[in-house]
């Protein structure tokens, strides 16, 4: 049977990777992408923890929470990208003004 | 008997996938890579599905496997065409 521990640790690594991207990038598309990566890592940890233990079936409550979380993350991404496109059209840059010196 | 067919077919399928991967890594330009891909992965998936179908426990499962293959074939055809056109437009504007 699957050992969920691998996936839990993988989730921790993915969260770390996403945080790296979110801190490092100034391009807002990349930051939203990093946000999604962090989110999926968190869900992976929750899902892995939910299928630990003697019961072989994955915890349905954890599954429901994760599905809700995925939908919420998608909604946030959709709004963020729409704002970004509108902002880039108005300002000509995909970066916030304070990060603009990174704009080549 | 069914198991032997499964072993053979799935192994063959995997072979085509591996060939496709090698092509995507090694072939020198976009077109030859695309050409290799469309051949390799569809045939690969086809053999895989045929092999797996011999393990199916009901006709419903076989039908759904067939649907997956049909969808994948259709998608691959469209994908290849669109990607080729896109690459063409990009390289000779």
């Amino acid at each position, binding site marked *: 049977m699957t050992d969920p521990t691998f996936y839990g640790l993988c989730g921790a690594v993915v969260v770390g990777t996403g945080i790296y991207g979110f801190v490092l990038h100034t391009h807002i598309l990349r930051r939203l992408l990093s946000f999604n990566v962090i989110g999926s890592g968190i869900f992976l940890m929750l899902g892995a923890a939910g299928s630990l233990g003697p019961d072989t079936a994955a915890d349905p409550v954890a599954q429901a929470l994760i599905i809700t979380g995925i939908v919420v993350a998608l909604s946030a991404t959709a709004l963020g990208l729409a704002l970004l496109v509108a902002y880039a059209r108005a300002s000509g840059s995909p970066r916030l003004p304070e990060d603009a010196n990174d704009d080549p | 008997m069914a*198991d032997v067919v499964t072993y053979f077919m799935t192994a063959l*399928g995997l072979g085509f996938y591996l060939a496709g991967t090698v092509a*995507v890594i090694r072939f020198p330009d976009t077109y030859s890579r695309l050409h290799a891909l469309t051949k390799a992965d569809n045939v690969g998936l086809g053999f895989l599905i045929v092999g797996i179908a011999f393990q199916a426990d009901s006709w419903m499962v076989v039908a759904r*496997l067939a649907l997956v293959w049909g969808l994948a074939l259709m*998608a691959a055809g469209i994908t290849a065409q669109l990607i080729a056109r896109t690459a063409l437009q990009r390289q000779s504007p």
Partner: protein
Amino acid sequence: MTSWLISLAVLLLLSLGGALWRVWRGPEPADRMIAAQLIGTGGVGIVLLLAAATDWSMIDVALVLALLAAVAAVAFAKAQSADSVGDPEEE
């Protein structure tokens, strides 16, 4: 049989690592997309292998994956066209 199917899935997954390299390397957008499509079809294959090995209802995931791989290709073609809403087949 189960261990054979899972072993095949491992090999298939490893081969997708090669395609992953091409997605990362590019150089053209089309190259990335070709390799991504290979990963999509490979993913369908892996799902089917897992389905045969463990639980047949996983086929539904393969179905959705195959469907959305095609949709992604359409979106790619659109996004790469001149005005981002066109068709690469238009002159």
